[in-house]
């Protein structure tokens, strides 16, 4: 069981405003469902991951994008992006 406060805390962290009261139940149900992972008996399992060779990484070369990308995005005062107040 996950408390309302916990869900609200996480929602805030994710910059999500909850205005649909069914969210609480939906999230709680899902979290409850995740509990079956406890019985999978995987504690000793190693995490696997894909690998890449160093030599297959991108070569360090400057290639400009070639178009004025900022003109296709939101811009303000010339070529800045405007953000809300940080106070």
């Amino acid at each position, binding site marked *: 069981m996950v408390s309302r406060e916990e869900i609200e805390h996480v929602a805030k962290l994710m910059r999500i405003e909850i205005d649909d009261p069914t969210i609480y139940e939906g999230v709680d149900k899902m979290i409850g469902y995740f509990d079956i992972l406890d019985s999978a008996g995987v504690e000793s399992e190693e995490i696997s991951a894909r*690998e890449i060779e*160093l030599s297959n990484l*991108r070569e*360090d070369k*400057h290639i*400009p994008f070639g178009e004025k990308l900022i003109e296709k995005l939101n811009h303000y005062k*010339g*070529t800045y992006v405007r*953000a809300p107040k*940080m106070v």
Partner: protein
Amino acid sequence: MTKIGLEIHSQLTELQSKLFCSCKANYREFQPNENICPICMGLPGSLPQLNQKAVEKATMIAMALNCSTPEKITFFRKNYFYPDLPKNFQITQLNIYGETSVGGPGILMVGDKKIRITRIQLEEDPGRIIYEGSSEKNQITLVDYNRAGTPLVEIVTEPDFENPKEVREFLNILSDLLANLGVSDPSLEGAMRADANVSIEDGNKVEIKNIGSFHDLEKAVHFEITRQQSLHARNIPIIQETRHWDDKRKITVSSRSKEEDLDYRYFLESDIPWVRIGNQIKDKLKSEMPETISSKKERYVSKYNIPAQVADVLSSDKFYSDLFEKSHTTENAKEVANIITTDLMGLVDTREKRESSKLTALHLKEIADSIQSGKITRNSAKNVLYEILKTGKAVSTVISDLDLDNVFSESELLKIIESVISEETQAVEQAKTNPQTINYLVGKVMQKTKGKADPTYTLDLLKKKIN
């Protein structure tokens, strides 16, 4: 006891491109948001393309700081919302699944003191925020993403420093080391930044952020120690917190964390597979690493007989030691080192002057050779350098333009000395009892020779004549 730890951020300024895209690593030359692409702007569907050289250079830094280097490195996402972060997460490194960041524990010696390095991680720099408006009320926040995605190496130390002086010494050594490795130019604005954490008497740790320069870092640490000591003296508890350095008031200020929930939800960045850095690669990187500062110094002393102090100054500055390497011969090495450390370093003491300088290694070699062959005096070197820095003209041209050659032969010089002795009888008499006065006579000789006489030689001759 005071304990200070550091988190140093150093941009890999010598790379051509950003950490995950082909935009330029040196963002400083662009108009706002002109050095961006779908990747560093985190546009939907874009993926990071890890820069091979960034991994190599970061590994070299780890090796130079005597850190362990893992077999495989991984990247993690650090999730938080901020306008300078186009994806609202930062790709960085962490050691939650074993040691997988570019560098593990290491050591850097500061004199006789051992500073332990906790780890080294490779990560992306965010963009830059510019605030306009005179008050909070009319604040306008502007963001320039040219810097976003610039390769950054974070070096974390253990809290091994006991005072601000040790911090400064460490940072000097570290920035020389990074410059010598050819990975970073610490003189570039914003290329090196650091946060500090400070605690006294095993008390709570206080982090200080937002420190603009190393100079301010020393001040901030000093302020913070004093602040904590005065609290401690009055039995006021020191709170574990993050404080910001207020550059204008030169104090640290508690950053009332509105971010009550700093949970970064780190997890693996699976768009970048684990990068294998095997022993073969490590050996290759090691062999490509430039000679260390201490090895250079040792070589300068033992091979060329350069005085230890001169060798120290010369070896720790990459710009000048590179110049030395290119201009010296076995014969003139000592002379070249001398010219660099006594004359050139004073003339070229800023980044701007370095960039505008027209002096080449060949110039330097020819000046040293001219001194050694007796074509010009040591004294004239500074004038020649000054002219060449501005004009880039050939050494021979400058020497004849300034009429610095035709150094007087011994017999010619003796004639002039004799004439000075006969003109300055009073001074000569004084000089016999007061050695200071003899310098006046040397000056007179230099005047008559238009500075072309060698002052040391003149002094010798004068002494012989008078006594």
